[in-house]
């Protein structure tokens, strides 16, 4: 091995929104990773979790769960005809012709683009929305934030004007009070969990509201083990106590907020006694929480999908923002609101305008001045009509009777709705009925089975760019390996389709794309590649390119909110129960959760040897020991879980961390795919599905030998559908 071919390359982890810094030692001549370890970064301080340390060997295509896509493929002879390997030129022409045909026949709004919040990075995200807006002529562009944190974006924007974390990850450890609601940091962001542990050691008071005993609940000073789906009742009652016991920061509320009277109108009904009947908590614990939270100017609210994935997600978020405003907990270090984004680049994909209502930098598509700015920059006429959200695709395909109003083309980059969206049966039907589906990805996935064209892209580690961490930090990602096979970076594929459709898009590298973007987005203008290189991380807003503007650690300084007039709006709504509650036939409440070693739809982590060994198919359903005893279930036994929408097999895990009547499943298993069971009811304003609550039933399977075989069959069937040939693996 030539010595000088060994290089060290630093990049940002591709899994969660913490954005840990990893250093790869690579033999470039052999195109091989020799070593990986975490190094110092603003958010991770030299640490990483199991995914950062051991979650990269999927790049070598070990073909454990599925196989890398290596060649462009199309169905030349229409739907159901076999996929055929073709040249890039042919694939691009095929896709461009079909998009053009559909646009001409059904109009621009018959197209919907799904951007990727994962590996491709911010530059590819910018290109995807530019393609959708400038080439297809519609604002029908969205991404998976819709199914996780869209409620945070919507709820925060309606109150404090900005959807991102107001504080940054390192600030968590200096909080005095942490109110952690519906957020399981240990499973979603271990390196954020580390900050919570540190805060505890530094003396912070931790209150954890969660129906399960999570790791944070376990170390908390007070665990509010509330009934699933009762979040709004809890936060409303906290506001009720803060107001009725006069724990308000009057000066702050007077100077920086409005809407107090309307707010009080709603929350005045939510006395702790009344909220206790809904949440199952004691009125005393509710009072104590409110007093404790209001007692400090360094109170932090952290939340995750445990509040957003409800049909009242936006309402809960609005009230959390209001709690922080009522107590003056904004505009200083270590206070404020922390909706901690899940995947590595969910924040970035929002930043890049892969949302139906905003251009990059959160600039409204309905604002004529903004529209004119982008029209001038991109040289085309743009639509001023907000687009539709991706969770509404089924509505606009199978439920829309008028063909003129339907979605006819779906361009999916780096996402797998056939695994990640609720009610999979409905999604499969939807994908089969869309006239033209393009899947652009790195692995065969469940959505690829429904695609008319497959465009193979480079993975994280095979291209350059940048991500935004959950606390608004732009950080570089760098090419570590040369991608194998006939694959291209996402942004290049999309640019080629645009060019083939008569709108030339050409860039030499990601920095050119980035520079175009920052010049169009005042909030990001200062975050040049050079500054990212120098500082490691640049938190937006960063207005000025000069070295003086280093970015912004926390938002809303001096109580000036990001709303048009700088004033925050106190808001909340009355509580209503989840859409589908337990009943005689389905007596358990099913909630979807995360598994620490696996991410998203598992195409990446499922193909990492170590992560696969730690946890594998068919996954687990967590149940209370009481419920297990009633059904006669033992740990590890294969069970059938059913809802109105379908059924799956998984293994039973009795745990005292779960209350009787509630069951929990992680959504990334392919056999134990809990989204076969989840309901597609949506939050009315953010359109986030209610993943966290539906009615289910668990059935014992007497013949375990049969069940094991059945699971093994299903697994082999999935693997062969994902083009894994057993002999090939052994060879």
């Amino acid at each position: 091995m030539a010595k000088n071919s060994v290089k060290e390359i630093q990049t940002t982890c591709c899994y969660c929104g913490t954005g840990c810094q990893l250093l790869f030692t690579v033999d470039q001549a052999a195109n091989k990773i020799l070593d990986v370890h975490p190094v110092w970064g603003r958010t991770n301080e030299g640490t990483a979790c199991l995914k950062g340390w051991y979650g990269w060997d999927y790049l070598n295509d070990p073909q454990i769960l599925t196989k890398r896509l290596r060649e462009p493929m199309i169905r030349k002879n229409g739907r159901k005809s076999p996929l055929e390997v073709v040249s890039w030129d042919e694939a691009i022409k095929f896709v461009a012709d079909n998009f053009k045909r559909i646009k001409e026949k059904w109009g621009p709004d018959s197209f919907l683009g799904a951007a990727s919040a994962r590996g491709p990075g911010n530059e590819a995200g910018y290109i995807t929305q530019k393609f959708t807006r400038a080439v297809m002529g519609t604002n029908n562009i969205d991404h998976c934030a819709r199914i996780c944190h869209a409620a945070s974006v919507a709820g925060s924007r309606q109150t404090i004007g900005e959807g991102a974390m107001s504080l940054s990850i390192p600030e968590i450890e200096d909080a005095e009070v942490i109110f952690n609601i519906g957020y399981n940091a240990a499973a979603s962001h271990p390196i954020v969990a580390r900050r919570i542990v540190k805060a505890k050691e530094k003396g912070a008071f931790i209150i954890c509201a969660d129906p399960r005993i999570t790791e944070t609940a376990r170390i908390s000073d007070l665990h509010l083990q509330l009934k699933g789906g009762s979040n709004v009742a809890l936060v409303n009652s906290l506001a009720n106590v803060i107001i009725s016991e006069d724990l308000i920061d009057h000066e702050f509320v007077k100077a920086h907020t409005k809407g107090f009277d309307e707010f009080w109108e709603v929350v005045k009904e939510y006395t702790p006694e009344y909220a206790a009947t809904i949440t199952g908590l004691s009125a005393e614990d509710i009072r104590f929480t409110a007093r404790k939270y209001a007692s400090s100017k360094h109170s932090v609210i952290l939340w995750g999908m445990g509040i957003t994935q409800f049909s009242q997600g936006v309402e809960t978020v609005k009230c959390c923002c209001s709690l922080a405003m009522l107590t003056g907990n904004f505009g200083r270090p270590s206070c404020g609101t922390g909706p901690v984004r899940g995947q590595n680049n969910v924040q970035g994909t929002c930043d890049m305008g892969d949302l139906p209502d905003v251009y990059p930098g959160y600039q409204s598509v309905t604002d004529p001045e903004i529209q004119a700015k982008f029209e001038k920059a991109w040289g085309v006429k743009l639509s001023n009509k907000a687009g539709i959200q991706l969770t509404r695709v089924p509505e606009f395909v199978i439920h829309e009777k008028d063909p003129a109003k339907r979605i006819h083309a779906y361009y999916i980059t780096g996402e797998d709705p056939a695994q990640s969206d609720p009610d999979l049966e409905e999604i499969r039907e939807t994908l089969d009925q869309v006239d033209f589906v393009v899947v652009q990805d790195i692995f065969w996935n469940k959505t690829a089975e429904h695609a008319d064209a497959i465009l193979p892209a480079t993975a994280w580690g095979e291209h350059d760019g940048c991500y935004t961490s959950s606390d608004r930090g732009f950080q570089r990602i760098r090419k570590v390996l040369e991608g194998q096979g006939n694959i291209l970076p996402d942004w290049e594929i999309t640019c080629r389709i645009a060019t083939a459709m008569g709108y030339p898009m050409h860039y030499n590298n990601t920095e050119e794309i980035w520079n175009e973007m920052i010049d169009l987005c005042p909030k990001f203008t200062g975050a040049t590649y050079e500054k990212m290189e120098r500082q490691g991380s640049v938190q937006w807003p960063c207005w000025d390119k000069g070295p003086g503007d280093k970015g912004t650690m926390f938002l809303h300084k001096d109580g000036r909110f990001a709303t048009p007039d700088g004033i925050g709006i106190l808001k909340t709504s009355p509580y209503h129960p989840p859409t589908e509650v337990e009943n005689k036939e389905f007596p358990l409440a099913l909630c979807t959760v995360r598994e620490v070693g696996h991410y998203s739809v598992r195409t990446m982590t499922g193909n990492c040897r170590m992560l696969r060994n730690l946890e594998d198919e068919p996954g687990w359903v967590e149940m209370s020991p009481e419920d297990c005893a009633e059904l006669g279930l033992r740990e590890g036994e294969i069970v059938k879980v059913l809802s109105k929408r379908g059924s799956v097999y998984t293994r039973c895990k009795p745990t005292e961390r779960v209350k009787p009547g509630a069951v929990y499943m992680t959504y990334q298993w392919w056999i134990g795919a809990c989204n076969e069971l989840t309901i597609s009811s949506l939050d009315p304003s953010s359109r986030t599905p209610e993943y966290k609550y539906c009615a289910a039933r668990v059935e014992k399977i007497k013949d375990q030998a049969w069940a094991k075989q059945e699971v093994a069959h299903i697994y082999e069937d999935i693997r062969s559908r994902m083009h894994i040939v057993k002999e090939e693996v052994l060879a």
Partner: protein
Amino acid sequence: MNSFIKANPIRCIGCRTCLISCVVAHEGKRIFEIDPDGYNFNPRLFMVKTARVSAPVHCRHCENPACKASCTSGAIFVKDNVVLVDTKKCIGCKNCVIACPFGAVEIVETAEVQNDGSPRKIANKCDLCVGVADSPSCVKVCPTEALALVTDGDLSQSVADKRRNAAAAAAV
């Protein structure tokens, strides 16, 4: 005194990075390249989660090891303050598994195949990464610094501190 690894359950977040690091340290980096089904995943520490506790359990490296006393083949020995298993001598009799009061030993399949075609099974337990990594690998990777290698000096220091606190409290 023998050294041992101590877990702090307030810091542990149950992520099991330590378990993987143990396998990687003992199998070597080649593990990321070989046939995904061509090795055994046998961490030498065990994750325990109850309603109140999350923490991995390791071998305590006892001063008078019950496992060693019970070992029928003389496979368990103490060297340089570490209780070790001589894998060549181990016959998989399970006495050590029964004897260990912490559940820190288990019998695992190795990649070695016996005459009858079945995999050879032996005792597996924490060896403080002697001969495989500079510091115990689990201690190095743990993201929350929940694990610490406790040596003779550390223990006497902590005991001295506790005694001082106790004396101070008694003086009040």
